[in-house]
């Protein structure tokens, strides 16, 4: 599809089609805009705010903002990178993210985006919330400590699997992911390890069982190359399977 509409992303000319978001156009042009709750396979969400870019002095989430012709979009200035770093630090202290003990370390988007934005410490006071681990399902475990509320599993289960296994409950800082089953446990739900929802978590909250540390730390996706080059872990894993 050809188009003559363009905008500037850090000075580079990016073509776009009517209806594209800034993220859509940037991804297609091979430009990386950091993101966590966005996955091009699903309706944009705009909740993590990590993809904020500056358009005419206003910060907008690139995944939800329609691209407009002849605008200048700032994606990499110190100011924008600093704001993203602070958002990531907020996500880190809100949950319990212990990278050295996490199976997803090295292939975790939260960790990879944190590296990309040069986040060196969580900075804020940790909340240390009391959250549980659900190991009731034979093939998949959920560690709620690591959930960042991106709602990708909610969207995948609703829109692709048509199972509605996941939902969001609570409000404000008490917002949390829940499982739709009589007991609230994954093992009693209709969830299956072959569901789309099992393969979209950008962090280590939804993990397959029985396959711990198959690939050694140091040799994982983001250990070898930064996320700005290799992109989302979900897309990478999907590619590996095919």
């Amino acid at each position, binding site marked *: 599809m050809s188009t003559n509409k363009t905008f500037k992303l850090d000075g580079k000319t990016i073509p776009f089609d009517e209806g594209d978001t800034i993220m859509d156009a940037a991804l297609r042009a091979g430009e990386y805009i950091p993101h966590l709750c966005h996955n091009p396979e699903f309706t*944009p969400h*705009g*909740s*993590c*705010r*990590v993809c*904020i870019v500056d358009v005419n002095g206003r*910060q907008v*989430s690139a995944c*939800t903002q*329609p691209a407009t012709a002849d605008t200048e979009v700032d994606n990499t200035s110190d100011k924008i990178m600093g*704001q993203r770093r*602070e*958002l990531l630090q*907020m*996500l880190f*202290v*809100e949950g319990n993210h212990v990278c050295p003990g996490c199976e997803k370390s090295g292939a975790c988007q939260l960790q990879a985006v944190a590296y990309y934005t040069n986040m060196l410490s969580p900075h*804020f*006071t940790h*909340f240390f919330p009391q959250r549980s681990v659900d190991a009731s399902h034979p093939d998949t475990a959920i560690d709620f400590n690591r959930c960042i*509320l991106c709602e990708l599993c909610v969207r995948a289960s609703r829109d692709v699997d048509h199972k*509605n296994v*996941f*939902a*969001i*409950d*609570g*409000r*404000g*800082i*008490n*917002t949390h992911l*829940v*499982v*739709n*089953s*009589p007991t*609230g446990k994954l093992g009693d739900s209709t969830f299956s390890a072959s569901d789309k929802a099992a393969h979209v978590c950008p962090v280590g909250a939804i993990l397959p069982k029985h396959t711990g540390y198959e690939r050694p730390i140091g040799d994982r996706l983001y250990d070898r190359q930064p996320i700005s080059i290799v992109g989302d872990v979900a897309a990478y894993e999907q590619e590996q399977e095919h």
Partner: protein
Amino acid sequence: MSIDTFINEITAKSGNRPDYLLQTLYEIQQQYSCISGQAVKLLADKLSLTESYIHGVVGFYSFLHNTPRGTFDILISDSITDHMLGSRELLDSLCQKLGVVPGQPRTDGRVSVDTTSCTGMCEQGPAMLVNGWTITRLDPGRIESIAELIEADTPVAQWPQEFFLVEDNIQRSDILLSDDTADGDALRALIAQGDEATLQQIESSGLRGRGGAGFRTGMKWRFCKQADADQHYVVCNADEGEPGTFKDRVLLNSYADKVFEGMTLCAGIIGATKGYLYLRAEYRFLRAPLERVMQKRREAGLLGTNILGKQGFDFDIEIHMGAGAYICGEESSLIESLEGKRGIPRKRPPFPVTHGYLNKPTVVNNVETFMAAALIAIHGASWFRSVGTEESSGTKLLSISGDCEKPGIYEYPFGASIQHILQDCGASNAQAVQVAGAAGVTLPAEEFERRIAFEDVSTGGSFMVFDQQRDLLDMVRNFAHFFVHESCGFCTPCRVGSSLMKDLVDKVYAGHAGQYDLDEMHDIGALMRASSHCGLGTTAPNPMLDTLNKFPQIYSKRLKHSSYEPAFDLDAALQDARDITGRDDAGAHIGTES
């Protein structure tokens, strides 16, 4: 009646529409004091929704619960103006008399006592809700009587009527509140002038949204009218949740006809046949009177089919109840809530004028806006423009509370100065005025020359006065806690940032903070302002940022001298260890002073 029958009946009323879920849950809560697991199961079957989805809706709204509240469920209004009138002391005293821990139903299930966000009774507080019904002017005597009534198990319907008296307290009237036109005049004007001419009147009147955002009403109606769809909707935002505002309460209590008339006028212009009034649950006492006004209007041919005899002019209104969520005052959250969902603000674009309720073109306006529109249809645009300023035509209703002799409703032409208003309401010793509520602006004396207008101090109507004796950090703390409670939790900066802010304000209050913490508040506030998904998140840091800038002494006088202090008291942190080991000797303490 069994819960099965009850649920069958109420879901049948709405034709088992899943978008009526919140209304259904509200009724179940009223009837059974909670939404039990069994109720959720029945509803899930009936409405073809998952149980977790329904739990998620219950979990979002403060007035819905999955475990029973007390038979007498008491919520004490926790707005800063209630605090200033002694609500915290009254809460403690009530809990003590009843032997209740705040937030937990008493073991016999008789009573529960908790706090709730501003109930909109600021000028006649402290206020409470008992089973959703408002009680005003609490004092030690009333608290004593209430404790006795509860212990005697006297049904709320038999409590003294004067407890439930809600006064209008109109202190100053102008073109809106002195209205004496007859019911139906605006609709007769619409029929006489035609849709287009009437819409042009609204446009050229310069009327702007009275909720605070100030979007041009005529333009909104025009956009909605132009949006092609098989149905359009009119929604009145009566979710008056901004702390310190209560003017919609007065309009709905005494001027409801004109509000409904404004909605009907809008319907006639944009081509809607259905409207909703989204009423905050705190105003439950207004629901029955509002239903009666609508019934009267139907009988008078002002609502229903062929309004005023005009063929095809069909419009009716339904009241939907909120369930305790400040965010639902944001128009797209309100629409989500009307659709029975969690009140999460939508992504924009698209805007409600093209994709609103049920994805159809929808006008959402404030109560006061609809009333003003009705009067403009009658009296014309130039009548409206003759009052106010060039940019802000007409008048604004202010809800004035706090430290003044005559709190209540004041209607001023736009352009009235803060100083002038303070004189009128008898506030001679004001240190600061908080305009536009918790999300608004803090004005020190140096700014009292400023004016109420969209081009200067813009407000939905909240106006809280703080005199020289007040510690403004109490206000800041109250607002910081309010935003933690009311953040919807959707986006990172608001969900996490509001909690971080609250903790920092508490740290200052406890005397543990240093300059570093104030710098942190600046940083977090700036991030929330720049990166939040909706207006709640972008305005939530206002009270902190504004007072850090204008009242630095309320912080500096509490600071430790060092640049960094830990967030906790080392000795207090050892308490758990002391409890476990049963030790309390000197060796089990860390000297904080020595």
